[in-house]
């Protein structure tokens, strides 16, 4: 029993309110509560500006997307109405129940676009995880010196702070018929003549997205790995666990929250992606993001809004699935 605990016992036993009674020892909880009650600046003043800002620039836009999705198009703008025609267009065009289309079982073109977006996103997430995990593991487990850890981590993270458009453009010299990848493959004799398969293909699009967003997966995984108590690993080793067992039973389960957060980052970023598709993919296919912009440009705002809502729904479902699989609350 620690001294503190024994004092607490005595304090509990002693009759309170008597002069000379044992001093009441404050538990840690009580001390914390006392600090919380400390004056400081009033909360409403502290949160008011940011809250107002979020209402105007985050909630109003999202609510207006929802409202506008029911409005009617006038050709160069929109008028207030309650119409579901744009939702109908989203689900029907060139697909289900479209009278012009004999094939009833094909999903509409916009659902297919959303599905393509999701498929790309899923591939990118998988590759990002495979690339990021060993890196985060190396930085947190193999590099012992904290200074080196931080330096190597920052070095890997720096590209996140540079323009992502430019990083997308930077793929052009790598991918073309005379690109570096082709030259390299020619040099090692893997191919006999340059292949045009790299630029403007699903492959290049996926690679570019992975390169753009992989750092978002590295960060959270690194933090959750770095937080693992080293004595746990030591204990497991003392009990003769093999390195693989230690990884499977301790390290991997404890890093799951980090994986979930990293995957959510990559997921929301790539789902909302639209610029890379144009640069590296030559605009050959569209993502839901490009569809939204295209309809905005031709002033069909309600239909852009419908696509935006569907994108948001898909993202929410994805995030909920990830959160169902992994409990990230202990990470926050």
């Amino acid at each position, binding site marked *: 029993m620690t001294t503190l605990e024994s004092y607490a016992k005595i304090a509990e036993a002693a009759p309170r309110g008597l002069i000379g009674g044992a001093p009441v020892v404050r538990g840690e909880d009580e001390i914390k509560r006392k600090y*919380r009650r*400390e*004056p*400081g*600046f009033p*909360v409403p003043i*502290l*949160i008011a*500006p*940011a*809250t107002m*800002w*979020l209402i105007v*620039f*985050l909630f*109003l*836009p*999202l609510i*207006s*997307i929802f409202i506008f999705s029911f409005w009617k198009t006038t050709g160069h*703008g*929109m008028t207030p109405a309650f119409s579901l025609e744009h939702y109908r267009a989203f689900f029907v065009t060139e697909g289900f129940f479209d009278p012009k289309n004999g094939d009833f079982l094909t999903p509409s073109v916009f659902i297919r676009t959303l599905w393509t977006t999701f498929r790309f996103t899923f591939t990118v997430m998988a590759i990002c995880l495979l*690339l990021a995990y060993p890196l985060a*593991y*190396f*930085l947190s487990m*193999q590099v012992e010196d904290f200074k080196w850890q931080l330096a190597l981590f920052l070095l*890997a993270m*720096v590209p996140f*702070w*540079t*323009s*992502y*458009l*430019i*990083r997308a*453009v*930077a*793929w*052009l*010299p*790598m991918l*073309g018929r*005379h*690109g*570096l990848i082709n*030259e390299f493959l020619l040099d090692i004799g893997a191919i006999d003549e340059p292949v045009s398969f790299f630029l403007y293909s699903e492959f290049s699009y996926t690679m570019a997205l992975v*390169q753009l967003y992989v*750092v978002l997966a590295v960060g959270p995984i690194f933090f959750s790995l770095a937080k693992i108590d080293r004595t746990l690993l030591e204990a497991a080793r003392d009990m003769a666990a093999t390195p693989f067992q230690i990884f499977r039973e301790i390290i991997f389960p404890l890093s799951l929250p980090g994986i979930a957060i990293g995957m*959510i980052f990559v997921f929301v970023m790539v789902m909302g*992606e*639209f*610029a890379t598709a144009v640069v590296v993919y030559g605009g050959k296919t569209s993502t839901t993001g490009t569809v*939204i912009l295209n309809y*905005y440009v031709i002033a069909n*705002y309600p239909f*852009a*809004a419908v696509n935006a809502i569907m994108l*948001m729904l898909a*993202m929410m479902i994805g995030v909920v699935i990830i959160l169902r699989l992994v409990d990230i609350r202990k990470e926050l």
Partner: protein
Amino acid sequence: MARSTPERRRKTRIKAGFSVYYAIFLIFVYGPMFAMFTLSFQGPRGGVTFPMRGFSVFWWEKLTGPSAVGDIKSSLVRSLILAVIVMVITAIFSTMLAMAFRKKFRGSGPLFYAVMSGLMVPGVLLSLGLASLLRVVGIPPGWWYSGLGVHVVWTLPFGFLVMMAVFNRFDARLEEAARDMGADEWTVFKEITLPLITPGIVAAGLFGFTLSYDEFARTTLLSGGQNTLPLDINAAMTQRVQPTIFALGTASTIFSLLMIGLFIVIYTILYRRSR
């Protein structure tokens, strides 16, 4: 505990393997950028891919010349002004929010998620929502208000998380002591809290600056007639791609790296001083 030699050798091998992997990862992340740096010095008759046809500063001259893609100089100035404003607002807001979150208050849960959703909502949605809202209301969008608004929504969660981390490790007893000696709230903040959290505030501002300076998706529909630098870059990209864009990209990347370096230096100095 002495380890047997074979095990130590195995460990070294594993470590070497991971180091090689780290190096390859760096090449993957930085490689395209270096290809771009090199190609920005492409000869006048060269194209956007290798081989280099000579070595020249032709495309760099073209970039700074009058017939450059768009009006680069003024869009750069706009981007910088915007980034500085975003930096200041991010630093102030995230400090205030994190200070509020040191206490328990009603609605703290929803507010936390509201701040965090700035990270989750794709830029294209915010752009679309605010742009169509402004259109209905009849206000033309402009980079310095509608653009600024959504930029801060994007940078605030980063700054907020930084400041939360700062206050997690903050020793509240220091403030308590000052209060016990009769200092009022402003004096406590100015003399005790602020000097201790300055490195954090600088870091929050750094996030704001660099994220805003490079932001494209959120500015797309909201900048009005005047472009910021990322918008100009995008415009140049959708036209015929020339090595000029590589020169522009190189310049912009070097500038970003310099800013990051500068901020790291400032942060280190302030951090040492606050110890």
